[in-house]
């Protein structure tokens, strides 16, 4: 994600996915290897005749090595399930990473549209078009009453999952996060936080998404998630304000130390990196750190992950070697050298 788009100091990305199945085949658990191949082939053919495919790339996931699969997973272009399952499976990739289509995941098709910052409406519009295009070439499993039929009943109806990834370090630091989310839970919006070893926060990222897919139309589901985001942004801004007002010195010290560690460490784990990058990200957004740019920080979150580092080196690395390589990489991109900005 480029670190642009509305509210991008707090909202990392907006993401919309649709689950679809082809009516001529059973769902994945009952697919024979032959069925899986036939599904992949018919999707491939359908794409060839669509305008979206002019620069989109069809990737046969079954033929990819471990590292390439993990690389795509780290970029959130494919899921763990698609990466690790067996048999014919594929992903269609947009070169700008604005959409991806997984084939033979939990459902025959998982369409995904990504947008940096908070922009769910335009993400939905793009998704709707993508879906319409595919639907003109493929026959989806659909029932008048229950809508689009999916392998798991939790996705039936619209097959729609709307999610927004938020960076909420100040709500975490002020210990208000649970309270805020308990309130959200009452309105049927799911929140998930990611924690690492020893309950250390993994970068203070939280994902908000709709819990239901049936009984409301797509725009209403988008609006439901969209509605709660400004409140969260507001809470986070207030918490940041509070931190700055109460203890500017402490906060400045804290984020500067985080940057110091990232710039000088000789060995650093992925988790520790996330932890300190999160602090640095807040520091930059609050104007406490001014020689690092947000797009750089956002890219470092992704580029310091294991498969990315190994791709960069061109070969597999042990955990220790990865930690050394990660420290080098961070130092290169965070120390004051404008030409080291990552592209």
């Amino acid at each position, binding site marked *: 994600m480029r670190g642009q788009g509305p509210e991008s100091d707090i909202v990392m990305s907006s993401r919309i996915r649709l689950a679809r199945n082809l009516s001529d085949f059973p769902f994945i658990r009952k697919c024979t290897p032959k069925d899986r191949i036939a599904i992949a082939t018919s999707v491939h053919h359908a794409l060839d005749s669509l305008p979206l495919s002019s620069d989109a790339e069809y990737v046969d996931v079954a033929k990819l090595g471990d590292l390439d699969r993990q690389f795509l*997973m780290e970029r959130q272009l494919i899921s763990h399930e698609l990466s690790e399952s067996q048999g014919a499976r594929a992903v269609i990739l947009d070169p700008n990473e604005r959409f991806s289509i997984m084939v033979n995941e939990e459902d025959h098709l998982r369409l995904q549209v990504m947008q940096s910052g908070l922009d769910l409406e335009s993400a939905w519009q793009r998704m709707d078009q993508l879906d319409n295009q595919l639907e003109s070439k493929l026959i989806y499993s659909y029932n008048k009453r*229950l809508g689009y039929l999916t392998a*798991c009943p939790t996705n039936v109806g619209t097959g729609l999952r709307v*999610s927004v990834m938020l960076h909420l370090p100040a709500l975490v630091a002020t210990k208000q996060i649970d309270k805020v989310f308990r309130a959200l839970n009452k309105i049927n919006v799911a929140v998930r936080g990611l924690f690492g070893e020893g309950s250390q926060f993994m970068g203070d990222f939280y994902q908000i998404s709709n819990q239901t897919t049936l009984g409301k139309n797509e725009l209403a589901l988008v609006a439901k998630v969209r509605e709660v985001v400004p409140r969260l942004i507001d809470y986070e801004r207030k918490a940041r304000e509070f931190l700055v007002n109460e203890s500017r010195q402490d906060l400045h010290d804290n984020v500067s130390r985080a940057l110091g560690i990232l710039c000088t460490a000789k060995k650093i784990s992925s988790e520790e990196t996330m932890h300190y990058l999160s602090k640095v990200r807040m520091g930059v957004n609050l104007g406490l750190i001014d020689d690092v740019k947000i797009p750089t920080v956002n890219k470092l979150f992704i580029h310091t992950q294991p498969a990315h580092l190994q791709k960069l080196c061109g070969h597999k690395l042990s955990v220790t070697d990865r930690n050394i390589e990660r420290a080098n990489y961070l130092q290169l991109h965070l120390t004051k050298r404008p030409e080291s900005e990552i592209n």
Partner: protein
Amino acid sequence: MKCQHCEKPATFHITELTDPNGPSVLHLCEEHARTFLSNEGTATPASALSSMLAKQLKIEKAAEELATADKKTCPICGITFADFRKGGRLGCGYDYIAFEDDLEPLLVNIHGALQHMGKEPTNRSGSPERQHRLMQLKVEMKDAIGKEDYETASRLRDKITEVETGDESSWIEHEPEELDDDFQSETPIV
């Protein structure tokens, strides 16, 4: 600490804030954490879904009823309701019809609704009812051919073409009353 789903050490501690009983913490190994997280946040993981289903069925149904429900089999993909309960995944689109009575309370529980309100595909021939109808007709035709009843077979072939090329009206109005009727029955449907 061990992973909740296997013997590996738990290196991920995920706080699930969607649980209606308040936040709960999951302790998972990297592998299980990735599976869990790549479910995009909300899709209830299969294990949670099946335990939810088991709980719900226990409340609503006597053991006897449950055993009957478990034996229900989808005529198209062959999955039983018990198979679904174990894995949390359905075998084909027709399962929504074959297991309708048992899935309905689950859908209400998850979504609080039973009627799709969203977009519709322009090509609606992908309905499982239609597929089931086609399958019935094909079996009957094979049967008729086997019995050298070519008149019936040819009538059934026309019917198949009609369902294959026609719109919803070409099969909905001829839909047999009982969907669960043995589709291999020799009773002529037309």
